[in-house]
């Protein structure tokens, strides 16, 4: 299928305003009489709060109010929670603090400087409790408890088995096993989360916020605030990056709303970087694996056995949806059928886990690929060979995986071939050998693949839970298309979906395709929650697919109305007309027709010229539901179809490691992705390079570290190391397009794949560079000290021989 606009490299329509510095971010918003909040954060990991003394702070001129957990307990309900009900949290800690950085009190003042002065004057009496930092120790009965009401530090424990893993391993020629730790990193966008709340017209609380999904969850914020949901309006504010961190980011708007209600004036609370790193509510996964994979001698994978302890931190707002996510692609692109997966989600004195690009499936993919690489090395197979011989084949789709999810379409050999065609592996392997022998240099080549599940259905948030509280099955997206009386287009999106993706470009491109108008001419707006139709917002690489479906649905309705008006005006049969290049014309006599402007004028101003029964105006809305979801089995034997729009990617990395310093540097990086039909190759490429760079960060640099005493060690950008342009490689991007049979235009999501595969590819390349020393990346981030320790141990072993 060829399209006029879809699939073309075009400029983004979002960019001009951003380039002149008018992104309209939350911190740019000024309301008359607006106050500012600053937060006192816990310096201790685990303590009972005996008292908070605000006397001095309240004496400071400019300080308007101080609120604490006691106020929250008295005036709020617990925050939204998809985890166990016995693990409740509030925007300010109630009774206990459970990690360094947890919010203890909020000071509202005339400006942020004064608010921070007020924070300085607060005095808190803590009764310290033993810190719970090691998830293994946390599971022991003698451990201190984070949540006495929950009765244990294990938030969730269950084992799932699909097929027969013991039999699969019994029949294997080789079973590899590994102990792996994926360390904490997070989305950490350049802009933090923020909200401005004001008591507004008619007693409605208005909260401006850069959180992404409020159309889906604003009623839950209203519930926390104990106000009717129709008395809360969430106002959309574009975000300066999210990567998961602004997905359902609720505490910031809840707190701003609470403060505004208490002081009766507009209140701005924008996290500073310390707030954000310590307390974003969206630290990424922190998992300890014992993992095994069976192989036959020819490389065929027979089964997978995973035992994972997931260090969830102090709360479990998202439940164990991260593992539900991993189940969407639990076998990766491979054909094996036997999987066992034991999960223990453990509570510790750390910031809770939330969402980060991949939402748990990226960790699973790293584990899977680590095992596949170990199998390949042990069996003497090249990484591309072992993958190729296990791939699900193009003629097997749609393909149901163990656990019940379905892969819609794919051509994994084509992606691998495309990647291999972009880089001469034989040449690099020869060069690797030559440089090692002649110059003593250590070059490594890593190849990895990933599935990129896209378009979540929402059932994975609860399907693993025995008695789910909110077993939702809807995750719709809506769009409203308006043609104004002069024929100009307005597109209304029903959530705040701009975080650095390209919702306006996608929307304008689809409208251009449907109506033959220039994409740049479309004006895009975002609805507030009082006006929004059902909308779930970006997340899980869903938005492009879902909003395209919604816009196309609305467009179909609008096209029909235009053709009906034209047919009536031209006295032609509707089926003889077509819409081409912003004009409705007679198919066999294209010189006869009406422009959109002419039709729009008729639609708005000449009701008597409209077909009988038609009403004035040119506006249509459409709500597009998830294209393919089925119910999970209640007993956990089958999760149903929940993430069927399945992309795929292959990355090939060439890097050099300096064995004396442990510093890696990239020599080449090829990334090939199949995200179905591409809407805009360059913006998809931006997601690939941006995601891969985050994956590199997770692999080599970024770490949200807590020491043994529970002190947080990564509260600034001097310690949380985001890759700069120096650390990012010069990527070479390739695309393969296998359309989805289930979505409009065949689009698949493409927002996360870069980060889902880069860690596996980079880990493999580091292993390969230092293979002679027995290097094996088992813990992320892998730091220079780890690499040098392995090299030195390897060298002294050699010396000993």
């Amino acid at each position, binding site marked *: 299928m060829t399209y006029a606009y879809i699939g073309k490299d075009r400029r983004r329509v979002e960019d001009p305003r951003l380039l002149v510095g008018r992104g309209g971010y939350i911190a740019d918003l000024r309301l008359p009489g607006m106050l500012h909040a600053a937060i006192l954060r816990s310096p201790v990991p685990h303590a009972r709060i005996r008292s908070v003394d605000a006397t001095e702070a309240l004496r400071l001129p400019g300080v308007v109010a101080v609120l604490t957990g006691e106020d929250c307990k008295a005036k709020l309900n617990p925050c939204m929670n998809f985890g166990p009900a016995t693990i409740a949290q509030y925007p300010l800690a109630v009774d206990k603090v459970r990690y360094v950085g947890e919010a203890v009190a909020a000071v509202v003042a005339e400006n942020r*400087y004064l608010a921070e002065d007020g924070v300085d004057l607060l005095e808190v009496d803590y009764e310290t409790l033993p810190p719970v930092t090691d998830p293994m120790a946390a599971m022991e009965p003698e451990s201190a408890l984070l949540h006495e009401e929950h009765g244990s530090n294990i938030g969730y424990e269950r084992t799932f088995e699909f097929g027969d893993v013991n039999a699969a391993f019994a029949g294997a020629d080789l079973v590899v096993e590994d102990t792996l730790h994926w360390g904490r990193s997070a989305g950490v966008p350049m802009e933090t989360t923020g909200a401005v709340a004001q008591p507004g017209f008619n007693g409605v609380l208005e909260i401006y916020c850069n959180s992404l999904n409020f159309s889906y969850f604003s009623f839950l914020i209203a519930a926390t605030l104990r106000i009717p949901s129709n008395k809360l309006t969430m106002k959309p504010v574009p975000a300066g990056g999210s990567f998961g961190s602004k997905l359902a980011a609720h505490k910031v708007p809840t707190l701003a709303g609470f403060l505004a209600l208490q002081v009766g004036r507009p209140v701005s609370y924008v996290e500073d970087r*310390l707030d954000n790193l310590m307390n974003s509510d969206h630290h990424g996964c922190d998992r300890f694996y014992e993992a095994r994979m069976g192989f036959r001698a020819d490389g065929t994978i027979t089964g997978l056995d995973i035992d994972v302890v997931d260090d969830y931190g102090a709360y479990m707002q998202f439940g164990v949806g991260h593992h539900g996510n991993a189940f969407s692609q639990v076998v990766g692109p491979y054909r094996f059928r036997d999987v066992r997966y034991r999960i223990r989600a453990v509570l510790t004195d750390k910031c809770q886990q939330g969402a980060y690009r991949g939402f748990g499936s990226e960790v699973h993919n790293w584990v899977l690929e680590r095992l596949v690489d170990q199998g390949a090395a042990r069996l003497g197979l090249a990484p591309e060979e072992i993958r190729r011989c296990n791939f699900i084949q193009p003629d097997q789709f749609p393909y149901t995986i163990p656990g019940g999810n379905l892969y819609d379409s794919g051509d994994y050999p084509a992606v691998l071939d495309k990647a291999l065609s972009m880089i001469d592996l034989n040449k690099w392997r020869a060069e690797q050998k030559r440089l090692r022998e002649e110059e003593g240099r250590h070059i490594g080549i890593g190849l990895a693949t990933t599935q990129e599940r896209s378009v979540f259905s929402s059932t994975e948030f609860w399907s693993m839970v025995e008695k789910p509280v909110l077993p939702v099955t809807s995750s719709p997206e809506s769009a409203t298309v308006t043609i104004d009386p002069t024929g100009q287009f307005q597109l209304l999106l029903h959530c705040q979906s701009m975080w650095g993706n390209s919702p306006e470009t996608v929307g304008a491109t689809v409208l251009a395709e449907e109506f033959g108008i220039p994409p740049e001419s479309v004006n895009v707006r975002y609805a507030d929650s009082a006006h929004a139709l059902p909308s779930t917002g970006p997340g899980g690489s869903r938005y492009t697919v879902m909003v395209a479906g919604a816009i196309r649905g609305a467009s179909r309705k609008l096209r029909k109305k235009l053709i009906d008006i034209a047919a009536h005006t031209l006295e032609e049969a509707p089926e003889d007309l077509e819409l081409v290049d912003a004009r409705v014309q007679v198919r066999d006599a294209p010189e006869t027709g009406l422009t959109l402007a002419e039709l729009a004028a008729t639609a708005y101003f000449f009701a008597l010229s409209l077909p009988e029964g038609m009403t004035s105006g040119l506006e249509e809305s459409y709500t597009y539901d998830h294209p393919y979801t089925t119910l999970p089995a209640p007993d956990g034997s089958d999760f149903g179809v929940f993430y069927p729009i399945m992309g795929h990617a292959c990355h090939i990395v060439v890097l050099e490691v300096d064995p*004396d310093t442990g510093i890696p540097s990239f020599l080449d990086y090829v990334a090939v992705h199949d995200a179905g039909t591409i809407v805009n190759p360059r913006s998809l490429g931006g997601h690939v390079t941006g995601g891969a760079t985050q994956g590199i960060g997770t692999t080599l640099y970024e770490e949200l570290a807590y020491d043994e005493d529970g002190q947080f060690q990564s509260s600034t950008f001097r310690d949380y190391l985001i890759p*700069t342009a120096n650390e990012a490689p010069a990527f070479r991007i390739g695309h393969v397009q296998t359309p989805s049979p289930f979505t409009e235009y065949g689009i698949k999501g493409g927002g996360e794949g870069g980060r889902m595969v880069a860690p596996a590819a980079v880990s493999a390349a580091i292993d390969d560079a230092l293979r002679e020393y027995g290097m094996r990346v088992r813990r992320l981030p892998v730091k*220079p000290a780890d690499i040098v320790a392995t090299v030195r141990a390897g060298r002294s072993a050699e010396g000993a021989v």
Partner: protein
Amino acid sequence: MKPPPFTYCDPESVDEAVALKSEYGSDSLVLAGGQSLLPMLNMRLARPEVLIDINKIGDLQRIERWDDILEVGAGVRQYELEDHQLVGELVPLLPEATGYIGHIECRHRGTVGGSLAHAHSAAELPCTAVALDATVVVRGPSGIRTIEARDFFQGRMTTALEPEEVLVAVRYPVTPQAAGHGFVEVARRAGDFALAGAAAVVNLGEDGCFTSVSVGVSSISDTPVRASAVESALIGEAPTENNIARAAEEIVPSVTAADDLHATHDYRRHLASVVVRRAITAAVARAHERRNGT
């Protein structure tokens, strides 16, 4: 993250600055380039009662040569060292090391004196000052005092500067024409604090052997370290790969830095010898180039 309240003073002369320091002593802090102090203020890790901004003091911004000394005013911005002709000719290690300080935006504001007074053990200019046998010039109520760089750095971010004194300049001995220099730094990301760094200047005699070796090492201890044991192991030796590598190991006992988030103690012990070896090797190569007139 906003600075706490302070009384802001922006004297236009060193005398005035010294008078302020004399009156407020350790209740006051000197604001030079602000690249370390402003983050500390913003995070409220520093809470001076008086902030003495020395950026308006023109006297601090001179770069001058007299005899065999290059004097750089405390207020000279770091980026100015990078393409300053006189600095490049007289003390070529200085611009090279300066290029490793943070990123260009930091060097546009950061000053020479600010870096020395902040005395971070991972910083480039303190390490370089130690390697170059520089002298720190300070002014107090009773006048000028000079302190050898190796005595100036006394402990973790502590210096010999008294509370009533202001650092006004640093004097670098002019590097001999035939000498070679090298600077090597290893960091997690380019521009980060060094995990270890080394600055070296060497002279080779007629016989090609080392006649002098000066090496400063950063980020392995509370202060920048002068690698005296390495130096003495090399004097009179030929600059062979083996000799340099063996001598570089002499730095290892000086490594006292404990494990931190970015490096272990063991790693730093190893890395220290690597950067010392590489810096000396680079310096030797330069000395050879100079001798051969290339």
